């Protein structure tokens, strides 16, 4: 909590004029063109009504425009975090069983500051892939959209679709303990139950479906080497989800579960810890994205409050990196995702370094967090690059991230929907 207060205290809250008739002009010294993957210099970006009006060198700046001078900075699109858990006190409390000590209201209150944390780190959009108490993410998304508190644009899953005792379930309790409705909302054990859960979530206005096709590291009694759900169940889920226009994100560690999910047509594999040549070729062929979450391991290893059994699960950092490199080499599409509650809230931007270590160029890593992520999200017409007609989601860093990707750990300027939230 205290560190969040310090971030708030440091960040200057500058408004770029009334959202409305006034034009804002941003002078960008260096400019990352995410679509072409090139770096331009001395660009001007005109913003009005929260939308980018024009981008180019030497654009005429209207007389009464508010000018933001970032001519000493590198300007780029607001970043997209594709594996977010804003509803979580994970940083201070990684024990899922402690969820049982809190009402949904308490969970909501402690999660609200996370929204501002990630926005200030440059993430203007997040794909939030799970909460233990169903639908709190929906409430957060809507509250942010209504301007009740600051945060990124959220696309949410609503609940985990998972097997009984699965990676997305509340496990570790005695079997005679009855869990509340919102801790079992997406549990399914047949193709038909699974379809019903997708229908239920669609009716609750979620943006995507999250399924878990293997065990997990951070779940009690979970075996990340075992697959979860049969191929038949996963196919049914994907079919029903796509029917509602919802993409499917599949948590997967071991290669068997991942193969089932890729064959069934999921849109992304999350983590992808164990990837062999066969599954990587399948992903490449089907256009399945990989959302790697490489940075989690260092934070899992060093969290003082981590349940002991979780530590035992996590001896796989090197394997994970090797799988990632394999995927990159084979041309699998990568979208940026960190599992942010584990590490990124406190240490933003580390994932970029690991992606570069694993074989991506710095520009490719930035594209994974911009245009590629927007593509996976189905939001390319709105976010992911600084282009006329898109939302004015713009960030800036000092120095050149192409030369030194670690610069992404310190975002100086954050604008979302044309409103400035940070301007150091």
């Amino acid at each position, binding site marked *: 909590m205290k560190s969040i207060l310090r971030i708030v205290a440091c960040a200057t809250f500058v*408004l770029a004029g009334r959202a409305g008739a006034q034009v804002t002009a941003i002078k960008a010294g260096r400019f990352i063109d995410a679509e072409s993957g090139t770096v331009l210099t001395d660009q001007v970006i005109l913003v009005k009504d*929260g939308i980018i009006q024009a981008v180019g060198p030497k654009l005429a700046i209207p007389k009464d425009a508010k000018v933001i001078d970032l001519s000493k900075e590198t300007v780029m699109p607001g970043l997209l975090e594709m594996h977010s858990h804003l509803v979580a006190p994970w940083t201070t409390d990684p024990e899922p069983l402690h969820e049982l000590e809190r009402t949904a209201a308490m969970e909501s209150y402690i999660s609200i500051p996370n929204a501002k944390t990630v926005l200030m780190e440059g993430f203007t959009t997040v794909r939030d892939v799970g909460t233990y108490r169903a639908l709190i993410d929906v409430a957060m998304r809507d509250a942010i959209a209504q301007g009740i508190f600051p945060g990124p644009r959220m696309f949410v899953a609503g609940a985990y679709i998972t097997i009984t005792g699965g990676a997305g379930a509340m496990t570790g309790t005695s079997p005679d303990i009855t869990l509340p409705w919102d801790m079992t909302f997406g549990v399914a054990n047949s193709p038909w139950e699974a379809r019903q859960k997708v229908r239920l979530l669609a009716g609750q206005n979620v943006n995507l479906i999250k399924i878990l096709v293997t065990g997990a590291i951070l779940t009690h009694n979970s075996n990340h080497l075992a697959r979860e759900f049969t191929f038949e169940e996963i196919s049914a889920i994907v079919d029903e989800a796509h029917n509602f226009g919802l993409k499917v994100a599949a948590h997967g560690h071991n290669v068997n579960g991942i193969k089932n999910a890729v064959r069934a047509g999921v849109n992304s594999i999350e983590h992808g810890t164990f990837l062999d040549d066969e599954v990587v070729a399948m992903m490449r062929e089907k256009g399945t994205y990989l959302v790697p979450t490489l940075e989690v391991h260092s934070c899992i290893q060093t969290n003082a409050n981590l349940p002991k059994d979780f530590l035992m699960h996590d001896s796989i950092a090197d394997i994970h990196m090797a799988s990632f490199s394999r995927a990159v080499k084979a041309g699998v599409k990568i979208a940026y995702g960190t599992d942010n509650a584990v590490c990124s809230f406190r240490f933003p931007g580390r994932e970029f370094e690991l992606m570069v270590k694993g074989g991506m160029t710095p520009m490719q890593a930035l594209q994974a967090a911009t245009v590629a992520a927007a593509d996976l999200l189905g939001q390319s017409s709105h976010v992911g690059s600084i282009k006329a007609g898109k939302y004015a989601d713009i960030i800036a860093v000092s120095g050149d991230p192409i030369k030194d990707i670690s610069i992404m750990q310190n975002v100086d300027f954050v604008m979302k929907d044309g409103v400035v939230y940070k301007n150091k």
Partner: protein
Amino acid sequence: MINFRRRLGIRLGVLLGVLLGVQLGGAQAPSAQVTAIKAGRLFDAVAGTMLANQVILVKDGRITAVGAGLAIPKGAKVIDLSAMTVLPGLLDMHTHLIGPPNDPDPLHELERTSAEEVMRSLPNPPKVLMAGFTTVRDVGTYRALTDVSMRDAIARGDVVGPRMFVAGAYVTITGGAGAVTGFSPDVILPWDMHYAEANSPWEGRQRVRMLAGQGVDFIKVLSTGAVLTHNSNANAREFTDEELVAIVDEAHNFGFKVAAHAHNAAGIKAAVKAGVNSIEHGSYLDEEGIQLMKQHGTYLVPTLETTECISAANGYPADFLEHSDRLNELSIENFKRAVREGVKIAFGTDISVCPFGTNGREFYWMVKYGMTPTASLQAATVGAADLLGQTANVGSITQGKFADIIAVKGDPLADITVMEKVQFVMKAGVVYKGP
């Protein structure tokens, strides 16, 4: 996402932008640095007099000294309010901070998860604090215990708002004034919408024990029907004498005071005899009731401003409007008599009935119906602190108490409506609204 919502969000985001930058996670730990406030006029709530040219010294969130011509330590931060009237931070003893503003039909609760309820309630506490109310006694939420978590979020500094003392849930009969009513009887409600419903003295005791275990601050019981509840009859009693006695006994056992919602005379008297610490509304208070209240030292929390706000224009259901019209005229006369005869009054607004931030309007009605401006200010300071059991901490600008200090332009003793435009708000030594 939805386009119009985004536009609205942008405009609201800008509008709320600067405020929210302070209002979420903006509170700081009490400071070791001394702050000195120069007060042109200072309302002495204990004595009920107005003093001139006072200095207040604040350190670590508490008042360390008050007086005329105090030496201001070197290095102190000086706040110059010499052109203003300074008063203690105010107490509103009847609030409902949980609940979306502008949605008076309780049935809409059924459309929201408790998380949504929490999110939509976030704008409420800052508005109340900015109106000068640094402490509130929150007397009920339809989703049990959401008030407890709001209280704790404010105490942690995650949300900006008044210091809260909360009831946790309504102790009410089946279909009672504090229940979610108006739906078919075969509809099953979630646990938190009937958490403290009770129908015997023993069930009543069990509910109090349960609430004590959930960390509430006091007990709210409803001993008559209500105006703002479907199918409720404000002229009928709710709970028998035996039930009320048991609830009060169990509550007092845990050190909790009891607030009793009561409109009709019989329900008021039953609650007073059972030993409740305050009567909320008290619309049909009769002479016998007044005498009983004086005997027992029971406070009256009048909530006068609600009559102005319960209107069709504000979206109130037709049956609520009907309930309200009947009460108004009589209740004004009864209040006037209670004041004349010396019943103890504590300030309470029933906010969200009127918009959050309009809490100060209650002063106007209290004075219009017979209180002196001084007495009305005392009802919102020392009187309220006494009812809350927090006299050691709040209610006056006195050495040792929390540095909860507000200021207005002009003289409230000459024109009480200046209390509707508070210019300066400090809570526990932190300034939330500047001079």
